[in-house]
C-alpha cells in the first residue's frame, strides 16, 4: 500500500486499534457510525446469538459487535489454572467491535474495475459512491467478507436511470467503513472511535498504534489474560498488515475472522501467467484441430 501517488498531499497512515479486553459491548460504535454516515437501519430480526442482533458486517453495518459466551476463565494464573477462591465453573463473555481492516494490500481495492475503491491520502481504503457501478467484484475479493452490495428500493427522489431498460430498482452500490474519510479531511476522529465509552476503539497513526498494542499485549500477558493476542498487526501477513487491527482473547475464527487472510492478488502474477498459457493452449488446441485437415 502506498500514499505515494499523493506526493505532498499524503498524510501519515491512520487506523484503528480495537482492544477487546476493555470492550463492554455497548454498541455505541454501531450507532455512532450509522448516525454519522446516515446508514439505513437493518432488520428487526432477533437472532438469539447472545446479545448480537446485527450478526455481521455488511452494506448497512460498518461496525459490528460480536458476543461470545465461553466456558473459559478470563484470566489464568502462571500455571494456567483457573483463578482460585472457589469460583464456579469458568465463564467469560467476549465482545469485539469488528470493522473493515483497511488492508495494506486490499483485495477489494485491487479487484475494483472502475476505481470506485481507492487508497486515500490517509492510507485508508474507501468506496466512492459517485463512481461505483455495483459490479460486485470486490465482494468475494475481500478475505474478511466486509464489503457488501446494498440492495434497497430506489426512492422517487433518486436520479432517473440512464438506461431504464437495464435499470435495477435498487441502490446497487457497495458500501463499507470509510474510516470516516470526510471527518478525517476535517481533522475529526472517526465517529465510532470518538463515541467508544471505554476507548476499546482507538484511532491514531498506525505506527504509534502498533507500538501501543505491543505494550498492551505485554501488560496483559503479565496479568495472565487468557489467550490474549494481536491480530492483524504484522506487516508480513497475507494482506501486508491491517490498517485496523485487534487485540483478541481467542482464535480469530471464534470471532468470525479468518485465521490467515491473504489478499487474492498476491497470486495474480502467477494467475496471469497461467491465463496466458491457457490462452496459448487454446490456440494450439484449435490449430491441432485443423492439423487433421481444413474440412
Amino acid at each position, binding site marked *: 500500500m502506498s500514499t505515494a501517488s499523493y506526493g505532498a498531499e499524503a498524510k501519515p497512515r491512520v487506523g484503528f486499534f480495537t482492544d477487546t479486553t476493555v470492550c463492554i459491548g455497548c454498541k455505541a460504535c454501531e450507532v455512532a457510525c450509522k448516525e454519522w454516515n446516515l446508514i439505513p437501519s437493518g432488520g428487526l430480526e432477533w*437472532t438469539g446469538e447472545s446479545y448480537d442482533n446485527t450478526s455481521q458486517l455488511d452494506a448497512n453495518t460498518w461496525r459490528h459487535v460480536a458476543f461470545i459466551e465461553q466456558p473459559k476463565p478470563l484470566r489464568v494464573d502462571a500455571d494456567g489454572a483457573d483463578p482460585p477462591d472457589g469460583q464456579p465453573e469458568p465463564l467469560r463473555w467476549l465482545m469485539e467491535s469488528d470493522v473493515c481492516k483497511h488492508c495494506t494490500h486490499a483485495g477489494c481495492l485491487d479487484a475494483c474495475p472502475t476505481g470506485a475503491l481507492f487508497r486515500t491520502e490517509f492510507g485508508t481504503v474507501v468506496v466512492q459512491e459517485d463512481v461505483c*457501478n455495483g459490479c460486485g467484484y470486490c465482494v468475494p475479493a475481500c478475505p474478511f467478507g466486509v464489503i457488501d452490495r446494498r440492495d434497497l428500493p430506489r426512492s422517487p427522489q433518486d436520479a432517473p436511470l440512464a438506461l431504464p431498460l*437495464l435499470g*435495477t430498482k435498487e441502490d446497487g452500490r457497495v458500501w463499507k467503513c470509510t474510516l470516516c474519510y470526510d471527518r478525517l479531511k476535517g481533522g475529526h476522529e472517526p465517529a465510532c472511535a470518538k463515541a467508544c465509552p471505554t476507548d476499546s476503539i482507538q484511532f491514531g497513526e498506525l505506527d504509534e498504534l502498533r507500538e501501543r498494542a505491543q505494550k498492551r499485549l505485554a501488560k496483559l500477558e503479565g496479568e495472565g489474560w487468557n489467550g490474549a493476542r494481536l491480530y492483524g498487526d504484522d506487516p508480513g501477513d497475507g494482506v501486508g498488515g491491517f490498517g485496523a487491527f485487534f487485540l483478541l482473547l481467542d482464535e480469530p475464527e471464534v470471532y468470525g475472522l479468518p485465521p490467515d487472510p491473504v489478499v487474492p*492478488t498476491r*497470486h495474480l502474477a502467477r494467475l496471469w501467467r497461467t*491465463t496466458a498459457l*491457457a490462452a496459448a493452449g487454446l490456440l494450439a488446441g484449435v490449430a491441432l484441430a485443423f492439423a487433421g*485437415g481444413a*474440412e
Partner: protein
Amino acid sequence: MTTASYYGRNIVKQPVWKSEIPLYFWTGGIAGASAVLHGLARLRGNEALAKRALFVGAVADVASPLLLVKDLGRPERFLNMFRMFKVTSPMSVGSWILLASGGASSTAAALELLGILAPVRRAAEIVSFAAGPPLATYTGALVANTSIPVWSEARDQLPWLFGASATATAGAAAAVVTPVQFAGPARRAAVAGAVAEGLVMREMRRRLGFVGEVYDQGAAGRHARIARACTTLGAGLLALAGRRPAPAKTGGLLMLGGGLALRFAVFRAGFQSARDPRYTVVPQKERLRARESG
C-alpha cells in the same frame, strides 16, 4: 470435522452476482474460441466454417456485454468500466479485452454481411483473433482472483478449465451450424476441448481436496453432473457419428448445454464454498501450522 466459528456464519461473503455472470462466462468463452476457429478457418480457406464461426462469435460477443451490464447494481454507470485500466483487476482487464473483441468481431461480421471494406474487415478479424484466447480464459482468472476458497485454491486450473470448455463449446456451436462436410475442425476442436476439460476438472478436484467437495453437493453438484453427462455424450456423438447431420447437431447442442452447466457448476460451487466457514478456516489453519512447523 468441527471447527470453531461465529455461530456458523460465513466469513467470506457469497458473491452478489446473478445468473447473467455464468451465462456470460459461457458466451464469452464461445466468442473467444470462435474467433480463433474463424481465424484459422480463414487461413486454411474453409470459408463455410470461417463465416459461421465469425457470426457465432459475433453474436456471443454482442450478448456478453449486455449480460454484464444487466448484472450491474448501477447499469447506467457501465461506462465506468473504462474509467481506468487496472492490471490488478481481471474484471478491468477483461472489460478492455471484451471491448476490443466485441468491437472487432461485430465490425468484421457486419462488413462480412455487407461484403464491403475488406481491408478494414481483415484488420478487425485480426484484432478479434488476437483477443479471442484471452477472452476465453480470463474469466477463469476472474473467479480465481477472489477469496472464495473453491475458486482461489483452483487458480492453477480455472483458466485452463474455462479455456478448454470454451474450445469445446465454440467447436460445438460451429458444428451445429456448419454443414458436416465443412465442420471437421470444429468437431475435432470440440472433442479435444471436452477431453481437456475432463482432465483439468479431475486435476482441479485433486488439488482442491476437501474444499472441492462442494462440486458433489447441492446445486453445484447437480450442475457438475449434468455438465459431465452432456459434454461426454455430446463429444461422443460428435466423435463417432459427427459426419451425419442429426447426431452432429444433437451432439453439438448437448455440448453447448454441458458447457453452460459447467459454468453454473463453478459459479454455484463458489457460493456454497463461501457459505460454510470450514472451507475458509481449515485450509488457512493448515497453512499456519505448516508455516509454524518451519
